[in-house]
């Protein structure tokens, strides 16, 4: 997939030193404006019809204050909020920390490391739906592969993972990490590879090795990319529907639902679409600042390119 392109895009490490110049010698005139306008129309239409209109429609659907009273009186909503905080907080940070370490591991030049990378990509290349369904059966208490393995190798009788709130939530987070770890590892790997080798050589000459080199070369150059990745993945994890829906199914007794799945559940299982929209809207105080920061960050890195 185009992960590498994305790494280039959000890395900001590939700064272009050429002076900027105005587009098209002498600017654009007359008939060119009509062309420019015509070229922009398809995207503007798509944006207005399928982004702005749904957003406004959603704001209108969720504008009744009574909905929020109803929502805040629902204990499932608070469970979902706490689950979402844990899911996003643990899922994103654990994954990024692992991805950062793994990107260091994959910098090794051995052939077997390169072949391992090919295998390691497989979870990312597999579509989410089959992967999560497989993980759901893998964790089945009675005949799941994981418990069979535990029994065969250690003689342990494994627990029924998806029957407990905490293990169900952990399974969802684990599945999300499993699926997306390769993507972020490759992004961070591309970031690491863009660090000029001369810097490491210079650090070597100055006597910096091991942790000191990490502290003074790798860390400062990777910090921005890492931060952008964390923020971007926070938004992705916040909106992640598939892992929770297919691994634990929100169960047992809707105790592992997150905001993204509970909204759909309200709208289509209980047939309360307005409540579903209101539920999603309560994420806006977190989402809007995140989107704002991300837009700034991404635009800045775009400007540097």
């Amino acid at each position, binding site marked *: 997939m*185009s992960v*590498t*392109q994305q790494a*280039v*895009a959000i890395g900001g490490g590939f700064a*272009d030193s050429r002076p900027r110049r105005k*587009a098209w*010698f002498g600017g*654009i005139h007359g008939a060119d404006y009509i*062309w*420019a*306008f015509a*070229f*922009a129309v*398809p*995207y503007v239409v*798509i944006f207005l*019809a399928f*982004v702005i209109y749904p*957003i406004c429609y959603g704001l209108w*659907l969720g504008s009744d204050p009574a909905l929020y009273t109803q929502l805040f009186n629902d204990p499932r909503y608070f469970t979902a909020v706490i689950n979402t905080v844990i899911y996003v907080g643990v899922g994103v940070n654990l994954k990024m920390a692992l991805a950062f370490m793994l990107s260091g591991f994959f910098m090794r*030049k051995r052939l*077997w*490391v390169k072949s*391992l990378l090919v295998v*390691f990509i*497989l*979870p*990312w*290349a*597999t*579509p989410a*739906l*089959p992967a999560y*369904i*497989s*993980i759901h059966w*893998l964790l089945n208490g*009675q005949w799941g*592969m994981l418990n*069979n*393995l535990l029994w065969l190798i250690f003689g342990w009788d494994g627990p029924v993972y998806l029957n407990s709130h905490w293990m169900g939530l952990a399974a969802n987070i684990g599945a999300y990490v*499993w699926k997306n770890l390769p993507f972020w590892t490759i992004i961070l790997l591309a970031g690491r590879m863009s660090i000029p*080798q001369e810097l*490491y050589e210079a650090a*070597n000459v100055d006597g910096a090795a091991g942790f000191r080199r*990490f502290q003074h070369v790798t860390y400062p150059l990777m910090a921005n990319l890492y931060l952008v990745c964390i923020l971007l993945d926070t938004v992705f994890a916040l*909106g992640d*529907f*598939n892992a929770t829906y*297919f691994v634990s199914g929100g169960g047992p007794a809707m105790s592992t639902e997150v905001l*993204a799945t509970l*909204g*759909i559940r309200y709208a289509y299982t209980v047939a309360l679409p307005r409540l579903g929209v209101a539920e999603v809207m309560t*994420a806006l105080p977190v*989402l809007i600042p*995140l989107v704002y920061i*991300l*837009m700034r960050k991404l635009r800045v890195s*775009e400007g540097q390119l």
Partner: protein
Amino acid sequence: MSATARTDTTFARETGTGAGADKAERRPSMRLHSRLHYRLQRYGMETLAIAFGIVLAIWSLLPIYNMWMIALDSHDDVFSGTIWPDNPSLESFRVVVTQNFWYLSRFWHQFGNSFYVGLGVMFLTLGIGSLASFTIGRMRIKHGWMLSNAALMTYVIPASFLAIPMYRIMQIYGLSNHLSSVILALTTFATPYAIFIFSQYGKSIPMELDESARIDGANPFQIYLRIYLPLMAPALVAVGTYALLLAWNEYLYNFLLLSTPDSMTVAVALAQFLNSDESPWNFMMATAIIYAMPPIILYYGFRRYMAAGLTMGGVKG
């Protein structure tokens, strides 16, 4: 052993020549000792790395192995509690391919639907995205930044949060249960990324080409078609693959917008198995594997091309 203490240096492409050289003036026995020590350290680290690699491979492959194992089981053996099927057979694949089960009675039709949606999203995304990026990046219209901001905003809004209003709006547009509703919705979410990448990549194409074409009397559309698009080929391939995979892998929007067996995509048909507790899980896993094949083939097929894209992007101008 000191190997563990040095694992934080594994990211570096260091060979450790410095560590041996600065001890060269010491006594011969010391030198021998340090060389031995160094060698042990290297072997220790390599062993550790290999052990880590094995754990990583198992972690990556276990769910995928599980998928195959269930698919190869015969129906009664699914619950047998082994880690390799007693009588592995391709029976469940045969059932899926011949549509011999009632959930799967329209399987190939649905497979075609998935392709139709994927290709539709791909071409729309490429067309709309490249036109918009041409206006923003090459023609530099006055308020182009507003367009790129709109794209950025769409890129960072979670699609699942817009699902409920989007569902209603598709009904208002009269597109519910129609494949074009999914195509339009997914194009909306794929285009921002396309604009983002095209704008980045377009900066590596010299403006002088456009200018000389203009002097030769080409209009903007000719420049777009004859100069911009051919030179953007690597980015077009990367974004096209992205859009195709996004559409193929999407579940939520397919599920909400498509409900009849004839309009469903494979993703929705696959999730139908979960409606019942008594479903034949081996058929489901066989369906899942067939469904997962095109993206995996596409991904590995274009991997090298993507890597080339990276190095091209990395070259400074």
